[in-house]
């Protein structure tokens, strides 16, 4: 029954969106973290989405989503003057993580909208299948 494939497709998308949500929450949680060593500072992370062509039937137009990897942002770190910080250098500066809070908030809204869309797809398809099962009763 071909409609069952929808659960796989939408399920993979929900899983990918929840990873995105997790990464976003990690970024937001670490937005203000600072360190004296630029190599130890938290850098913003972003998941890379890709289509899933191995098991689902691509020829029939059915492709799920998978996370190809999580990449660290290469945006420059912020040098902030904080002489009170224990790890501040001689000039009183510390490196603060390169998380862009506005970008992360937008990511969070987009991820939650996409997740909800897929939940709706599953609900509608489930309803269609249930109606098909009760055909002729």
């Amino acid at each position: 029954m071909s409609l069952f494939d929808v659960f796989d497709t939408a399920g993979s998308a929900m899983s990918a969106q929840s990873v995105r949500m997790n990464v976003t929450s990690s970024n937001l949680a670490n937005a203000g973290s600072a360190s004296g060593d630029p190599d130890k500072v938290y850098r913003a992370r972003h998941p890379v989405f890709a289509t899933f062509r191995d098991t689902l039937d691509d020829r029939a137009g059915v492709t799920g989503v998978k996370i190809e990897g999580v990449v660290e942002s290469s945006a420059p770190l912020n040098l902030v003057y904080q002489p009170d910080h224990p790890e501040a250098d001689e000039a009183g500066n510390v490196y603060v993580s390169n998380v862009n809070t506005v970008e992360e908030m937008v990511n969070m809204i987009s991820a939650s909208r996409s997740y909800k869309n897929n939940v709706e797809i599953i609900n509608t398809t489930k309803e269609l299948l249930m109606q098909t099962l009760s055909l002729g009763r």
Partner: protein
Amino acid sequence: MELNVLATHERALTFRAMRNRVLASNIANADTPGYKARDIEFGAALKNAQAGPQRMATTSDLHLKGSARASDSPAGNRLKYRVPAQPTLDGNTVDTDVEQAAFAENALMYRASLAFLDGRIRTIRYALKGAD
């Protein structure tokens, strides 16, 4: 004759189920870079279904007589790429609003076919059983 009517709606259901998968795939990939949205045209699928089964040419009566309808396979109902209304930086052509509208319309048409099929089955059962 009655069974023919069942077959028409059965084909419609198959088409709607196929389109449902394609549209669900589009919505699932709304955030995937480089994904191109696809859809099946109802007109082309209807034409395929009306064309009737295609038979293999045989030169002897002993040869197998295979037959298939173009509408039975996903490849027969050729998938087409959607033309995006506005460009995106990551090459993704999914417009979630368009896809959601198409999905809702498709689900409604699926229900319509189900209702027709259900009514037809009821009629046949009524004819078989007679009035209670």
